[in-house]
């Protein structure tokens, strides 16, 4: 005698494989919605392009997708890199010559009148050398007409 299976009321029913069960609709993310929208747009555009073969259309859509991805990478990678970089502290330029001088101690000759005089002489000489114009441009010989004649 075969035993009859009595359905148990508390047990959840087993769903056989390949059987589709209607349930509450899944929530799609906004990104997916945008992508779906873009896909739909593209497919509608492509469907209008009747003069292009389906194979070419596929290749074209792949090329467009690749280009879009590359564009996004080009935009976001430097942006992310910049965000990840630590802010560099601004360093003030320091005159090294001044630094070495100021950190050094003055010698006993620093205040000697002879040394101070020589220092002033060197500074004055510097101004004179920089102001010197070798060529007397204002005194270039005047351009004069020396060819006076009444011949044709």
């Amino acid at each position, binding site marked *: 005698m075969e035993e009859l299976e009595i359905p148990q009321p508390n047990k959840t029913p087993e769903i056989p494989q390949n059987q589709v069960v209607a349930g509450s609709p899944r929530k799609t993310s906004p990104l997916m919605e945008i992508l779906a929208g873009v896909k739909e747009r593209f497919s509608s555009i492509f469907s209008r392009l009747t003069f292009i073969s389906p194979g070419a259309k596929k290749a074209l859509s792949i090329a467009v997708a690749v280009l879009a991805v590359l564009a996004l990478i080009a935009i976001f990678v430097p942006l992310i890199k910049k965000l990840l970089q630590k802010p560099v502290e601004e360093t003030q330029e320091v005159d090294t010559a001044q630094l070495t*001088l100021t950190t*050094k*101690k*003055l*010698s*006993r*000759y*620093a205040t000697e009148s*002879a*040394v101070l*005089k*020589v*220092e002033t*002489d*060197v*500074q004055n*000489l*510097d101004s*004179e*050398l*920089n102001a*010197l114009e*070798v*060529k*007397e441009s*204002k*005194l270039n*010989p*005047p351009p*004069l*007409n*020396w*060819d*006076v*004649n*009444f011949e*044709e």
Partner: protein
Amino acid sequence: MLLASFFIGLFLPGVVFSQDEELTYERVYQDYTYNFDIYRKANSEYESFRLQFLQYKTLTSQENAKEATVKMLLARDEVVKTYLTALRTKLSGTDGIMDDKRNSLYSQIDAEVLWFADHKDKIPSAGTLDDLVKDSDEAAQYYLEKEFLTYDTLVTISTGKIAFLREKQENTLSEIKAKVAEIRTNGDKDTTTLERWTLDTEARITRSREKELEALELLRDLKGKQGKVNTSIYDQIIFKLSESLQYLKEANGYLKEIVNGIKFED
């Protein structure tokens, strides 16, 4: 108060003298540019009346051309005179020139000014256009012969300016060397580096002098064929003198470092 008056009295003559010299040069230079302006207008009129005469050959056009030529020749002689005077004044206000050279240039410039003054006096007595052409050719030939003098003076002024500052620099270097020697004797500071730096400075000054000599050697080639001055050689001379000045600037930079070396401890 008395002390202040003494010091003012001590320095004032020098200041007044140099200002006077500068004023004199400025005035003479203005005189030259003013006369050059008159000449430019006169030359333009001469060109215009010359063309009219060549076109119409009338007595009126001939008379107009003659008048315009006289005006132009007079103005041209005056430009040469005032230009040479400006050049001479600049020469007299420039230090660092040997007396022999200065006096030689003075006498040559004075002679040229005198020549153009005489020539200018002769111009109005010319009776025909041909006479005026002869007068002009005479002046042209003389000016060409003396063109070298102009450039020689210009080179001398440029050389003098550099030589004057080099002499000052050498004096300062001597003072620095004496101070370094004194420090060495005291023995409270290592002077090895300072002594080496003074030698480097001396080498720069020597290079400056060598460049000046190279420039002066080129002066011989300045007079080209038929006495005409080769202006490209003049440019080369100025370039050599600029190099000479550059060495002095470098030497002065070294002097600054030596002074700092003296002022600070090792």
